[in-house]
């Protein structure tokens, strides 16, 4: 039986701001819930290549695992949770700015 593919999103840091961004079907977003969810491995690899080629927009693009709940991607690993929200020592960064 083929190995189940864990859904992924393409994520990176923005070149100018340095903050965490996610790829959408048409560009980039700062909100994980708006990211394009990739459920096919070949498609995910292709989308990552496309993202990595945007050298004047993004830095360090990679595929991050997500869990999909009602079509909305959620972080799987705690590192991705902090990347999506910001530091946990007190509320600042993304969790404040995106509200």
């Amino acid at each position, binding site marked *: 039986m083929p190995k189940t593919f864990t859904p992924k999103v393409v994520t990176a840091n923005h070149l*100018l701001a340095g903050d965490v961004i996610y790829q959408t079907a048409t560009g980039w977003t700062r909100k994980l819930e708006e990211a394009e969810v990739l459920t096919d491995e070949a498609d995910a690899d292709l989308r990552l290549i496309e993202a990595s080629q945007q*050298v004047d927009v993004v830095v360090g693009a990679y595929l991050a695992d997500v869990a999909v709940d009602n079509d909305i991607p959620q972080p799987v690993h705690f590192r991705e949770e902090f*990347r999506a929200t910001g530091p946990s020592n007190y509320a600042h960064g993304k969790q404040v700015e995106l509200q």
Partner: protein
Amino acid sequence: MYSYSEFDSAFLARRNAQFRQQVERRIAGNLTEDEFKPLRLMNGLYLQLHAYMLRVAIPYGTLNSAKMHKLADIAERWDKGYGHFTTRQNIQYNWPALKDVPDMLDALAEVGMHAIQTSGNTIRNVTADHFAGAAADEIADPRPVAELLRQWSTDHPEFQFMPRKFKIAITGSPNDRAVTKAHDIGLRMLERDGARGFEVIVGGGLGRTPMIGKVVNDFLPEADLLPYLEAIVSVWNQVGRRDNKYKARIKITVHEHGIDEIRRLVEDRFVETRKTFSGVDQQMLREIETHFAAPSFKAASEAPFKNAYHGDPVFRSWADTNLTAHRAAGYKIVSISLKKHGETPGDASAAQMRLMADLARDYGHDELRISHEQNVILPHVHVSDLPALHARLKEAELATANIGLISDIIACPGMDYCALATARSIPVAQQIATRFEDLKLEHDIGQLKIKISGCINACGHHHVGHIGILGLDRAGVENYQITLGGDHTETAKVGDRAGPGFGAEEVVPAIERIIDAYLDLRTGPDEAFIETYKRTGMAPFKSALYPETKAVAAE
């Protein structure tokens, strides 16, 4: 304090202009990230979890009020209004935008500061005893030598592409507050038969393979320092491992070759390097020393201090924990705690930085220090000024009386900011501090160093904490290993691992069990935690930490 010569200022201006162009080329897409990364790292610019991070060098932890004010201005103008003081006496800005970094560096240059060699495989910012020039137990002020080392190592052509980073620490006191035995090179100033020299320690370091440094030379005459250090770095540069980044630090080189072989290689090389030094370095050192002349200490009545001490219990508590003996009569060294219970260790707001700068100017002969324990020091304060100083600290929430106590925790940024981290460390520090504040126990517990790192690179010095905590990722969950009995002083020792790690929710209860065991085991309040541990060893603490194991073993 050292102030830049025309040469220094011109060098820095050229370097900043060069980096400005590199940033412009990166933004325009003319440099790839692979091309740009080594260039930005040479100028202290990292890309972390949520943002860029600019690490600014505070050479040997010494600042004046103008520099501290500038750090505050930068925090407010280009960051989120605060800065983070680190275990290497630097300051980090966690949120700069790439386009602003050249302006930040120009602003730093206005007060003679920079971010050069705060990253990369070079000789990093030289750290020193944070009580340098003030401590009662000091043989000599190590900062002129530290400044000489800064000038020697900055942009040194032979040492820009080394096997790995290289860190030097120096102390002028027999009581080592600079963790010299956990550095690539540690220098301890000595006097022998009236002549000044150094004990040279090599191959210490923390990280994934912690090592206590070994003495390569037990008395190096002062004049031989630079050629000798050049010989050490040059030997390592040649025989150090470049095949494996995890074996590249000099601690591994010393471990693999043995200290006797390293000494032989260094002595051989020293014969060569010594010829290339004409003595001009010693002339420079004499000139540098003039910048570090002691302030003119004042004489004043100690009555205001005594009155406050006897009349105000809050002041007394602060004075009992946050003051250290000074070499001048009537003076004290003031440690300002950046560890208010529940706050992020080492963070200071722009307003707090400005206040500390003003206090240094008004009461402290215009000097400030950053300690590797992430606090701010006013090294020269007359006791008559302490009540007024304390009152102003209180208003800025900077009067926490906890220096050296359980809540005075070193914590690296961990996964709240750092891209290398495997777990968080700041929230663990916040929870421990808050818990023991609630229990009102910390003054009873007394001297105790807790040090927390969020990955094996050990920026939080966990190996040498009396209680060390190391955060790891175990199958996608934060897990914390505890070590006991580490020592960062002249009797340096790597702590012993207690046993299996703890989940994030279990760490504070685990620390409580250790403390309960200590309070139970100690011979009296005068026996500090580390002394009890040395007397009893791990066994009783292990039983307290893992009660279920004890129960099983007893069955």
